[in-house]
């Protein structure tokens, strides 16, 4: 007979306010195998845990049930507590009385009945629990960082500085992401390039960092400590091991293409470096636009001009596979395609209605206008500039419901730059709210008001052209009057959305996305950089809109998590894995086919049957590879495989206890 102890938590009033704890305790006393029941104000607290430890000794308990918050919250806490007792940490079941009972119900009687059922299920299950023991696996102390924006760069540098090798994968030809496109950065107005490019160079030259640009992750298998990752190195047609980055090829290339880096406001060549400070400082060929490669002409000028002979038109994509102990995802964002959803703003027909990143390039000294704010249409200096905030954000009908978080601040920055750079300029900012939570942020906004920016509270309903002016019509919701501003240029501060292709990254790493496609952290408060896939972490805007300070903080946080894993020689494995009963196994091999981790293999084993030695094929589970999903268990016809911790017997007990 097992001796089960039941501990019911009030969680302050979180559970006790809705569930009649005394009644649950009373009912629990008569449940099978229960020898002791107790309730507690806060079971997770130090005295709460001590009470359990004392009860274990006093009442000779050999397994326990805790009725408290979700097991996703405190199962690790209570397992850790049990490790210091006589009871194995896996002789524990938790009844979720908070998240799935008291918080979602109001009817006291029905909630109490449900709580009793949940406790009964846990009591029934725990009776079938077995002691489980962790084993250990070696850790490959090499990290993979996906995305080479400031988030990825910072994470890579921190891990590399701690002494571990890092591979930094970026799909574009250079590191830098969006930050390197920006001109100045709020709230200090330091030049973005001056603080971003040195970090790019550091990453490029760091002995522990391998930068892989023009690369994407193709395949991921394995698990924390040992992910096997295949990376696709896209053909660049330039041998970077020989190229000195002299730039002659770029000068000679005859095909001109609009520059992505300059946000379509300047041109580049088909063989190009995205921008002068690119890391690596070596060009690639854009095959779609290269006359030789797209077959439109013979060309090949770059090849004849290159003094190093590093142009190779026969270059092909390469697949490179390596093992990594941990992965940081830092794939960032892009701006929402406002043209397709805001027809009332001209839908892109007016060249002087631009987005925030285009404005950043216009004020940037290394941009297409050498830092003079000039209208894209005619190169004239705009005297009246309208800035519209929340385009595509906080607009669930047309765009996204969320706040894009950095725009209030960079809108203030843009207004400040207009007023600073253009004599006698007027700058209007249409806004819904001004959100400046951040160190020195409110002061920055106030300064912009002092500079003379005119803030109008309301959305712009329409933008149209009249007599060479862009008429912005909107409502000033503070005065209740409609306003109309004749502008020379309009800057739309548009919503950040996840980088294209984020779905593929999420699927490869089996991490989830939220309703807006941002990558989902494991817990919004307590595990902000972890994902539900052990060993995979998030950094920067890929997790949700944020500015550079927050991005960098998150990147360093994920680096610290990675270093934490690497600080151990071995990792403890999850003991809740599949186990084969070789006596029952028929050797059909279905399980091996079902397993997504290739953790099951078939082996010939010798048995004695009727006094004769025979060889039979049976399946075996690799405890390092098995992740404990249980798909093989449900697929096993003779019922020879079971999942420890979630055995057939345990789950059937729960079903029976509920259907009583």
């Amino acid at each position, binding site marked *: 007979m097992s001796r089960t102890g039941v501990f019911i938590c009030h969680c302050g009033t979180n559970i006790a306010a809705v569930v009649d704890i005394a009644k649950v305790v009373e009912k629990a006393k008569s449940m099978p195998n229960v020898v002791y029941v107790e309730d507690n104000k806060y079971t997770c607290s130090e005295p709460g845990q001590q009470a359990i430890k004392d009860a274990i000794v006093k009442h000779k308990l050999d397994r326990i049930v805790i009725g408290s918050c979700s097991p996703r919250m405190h199962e690790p806490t209570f397992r850790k507590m049990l490790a210091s007792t006589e009871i194995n940490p896996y002789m524990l079941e938790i009844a979720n009385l908070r998240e799935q009972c008291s918080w979602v119900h109001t009817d006291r009687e029905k909630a109490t009945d449900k709580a009793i059922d949940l406790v009964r299920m846990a009591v029934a299950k725990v009776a079938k629990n077995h002691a489980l023991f962790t084993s250990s696996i070696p850790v490959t102390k090499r990290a993979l960082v996906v995305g080479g924006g400031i988030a990825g760069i910072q994470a890579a540098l921190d891990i590399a500085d701690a002494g571990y090798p890092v591979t930094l994968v970026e799909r574009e030809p250079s590191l830098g992401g969006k930050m390197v496109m920006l001109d100045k950065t709020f709230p200090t107005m330091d030049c973005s390039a001056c603080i971003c490019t040195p970090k790019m160079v550091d990453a490029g030259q760091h002995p522990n960092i391998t930068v892989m640009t023009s690369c994407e992750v193709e395949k991921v298998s394995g698990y924390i400590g040992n992910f096997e990752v295949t990376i696709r190195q896209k053909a660049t047609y330039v041998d970077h091991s020989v190229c000195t980055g002299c730039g002659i090829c770029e000068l000679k290339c005859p095909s001109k293409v609009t520059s992505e880096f300059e946000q379509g406001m300047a041109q580049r060549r088909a063989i190009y470096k995205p921008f002068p400070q690119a890391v690596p400082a070596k060009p690639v060929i854009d095959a779609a636009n290269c006359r030789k490669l797209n077959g439109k002409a013979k060309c090949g000028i770059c090849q004849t001009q290159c003094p190093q002979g590093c142009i190779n038109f026969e270059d092909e994509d390469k697949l490179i596979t390596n093992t990594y102990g941990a992965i940081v995802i830092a794939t960032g964002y892009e701006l929402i395609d406002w043209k397709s959803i805001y027809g009332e703003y001209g839908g892109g027909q007016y060249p002087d209605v631009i987005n925030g990143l285009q404005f950043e390039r216009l004020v940037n000294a290394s941009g297409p206008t050498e830092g003079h704010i000039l209208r894209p249409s005619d190169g004239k200096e705009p005297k009246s500039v309208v800035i519209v905030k929340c385009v595509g954000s906080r607009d669930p009908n047309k765009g996204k419901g969320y706040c894009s978080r950095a725009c209030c601040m960079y809108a203030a920055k843009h207004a400040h730059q207009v007023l600073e750079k253009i004599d006698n300029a007027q700058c209007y900012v249409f806004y819904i709210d001004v959100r400046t939570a951040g160190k020195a942020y409110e002061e920055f906004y106030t300064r912009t008001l002092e500079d003379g920016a005119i803030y109008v509270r309301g959305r712009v309903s329409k933008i149209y052209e009249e007599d060479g002016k862009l008429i912005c019509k909107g409502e000033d919701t503070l005065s209740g009057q409609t306003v109309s501003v004749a502008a020379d240029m309009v800057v739309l501060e548009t919503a950040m959305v996840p980088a294209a292709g984020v779905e593929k990254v999420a699927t490869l790493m089996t991490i989830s996305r939220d309703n807006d496609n941002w990558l989902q952290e494991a817990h919004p408060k307590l595990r902000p950089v972890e994902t539900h896939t052990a060993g995979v972490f998030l950094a920067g805007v890929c997790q949700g809109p944020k500015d550079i300070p927050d991005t960098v903080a998150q990147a360093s946080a994920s680096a610290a998590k990675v270093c934490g894993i690497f600080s151990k020689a071995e990792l403890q494995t999850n003991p809740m894995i599949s186990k084969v009963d070789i006596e029952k196994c028929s050797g059909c091999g279905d399980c091996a086919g079902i397993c997504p981790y290739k953790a099951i293999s078939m082996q010939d084993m010798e048995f004695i049957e009727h006094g004769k030695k025979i060889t039979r094929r049976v399946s075996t589970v690799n405890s390092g590879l098995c992740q404990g*999903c249980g798909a093989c268990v449900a697929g096993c016809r003779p019922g020879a495989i079971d999942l420890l911790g979630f055995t057939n017997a345990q789950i059937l007990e729960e079903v029976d206890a509920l259907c009583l």
Partner: protein
Amino acid sequence: MSVDVEKKNVDPNWEPKILSFSCNWCTYAGADLAGLNRMKYPENVRVIRVPCSGRVNPQFVLRAFQKGSDGVLVCGCHPGDCHYVTGNYFTRRRFLLMQRFLEYNGIDPRRFQARWISGAEAGKFRDTVTKVSNDIKALGPNKKFQESWYKERGESNE
């Protein structure tokens, strides 16, 4: 449908017993999030946590119906988003097969449902549970299978 609905003398206060197998990574997390957001849904659904919807043996579903459950709901991550890569694809195939099998055995297949609810979809969890609960309520108690089971074999004989 030609199956079990026998709604004659149903007690108006009758509450169905509904069992939901929810995967730890998506739906169970979504259910926890519903709690965190203090969303409200009917009390008559009880969740059994499983690592993956693919862990759900058809046997569990049968047992639930045999023992008197009025409805069973299996929930997992969205197809393509399975924490274990492919688990929910197995669930999807097994589910269709199971529904047919249950119907063949005289159980209204509407009593057995599968849904994909992610860890972020607290609202979807609430709505799904509420809808399934209302639907099962409308179907009435699942008497047939349960009674015949007990009559033929006796409770202790499984």
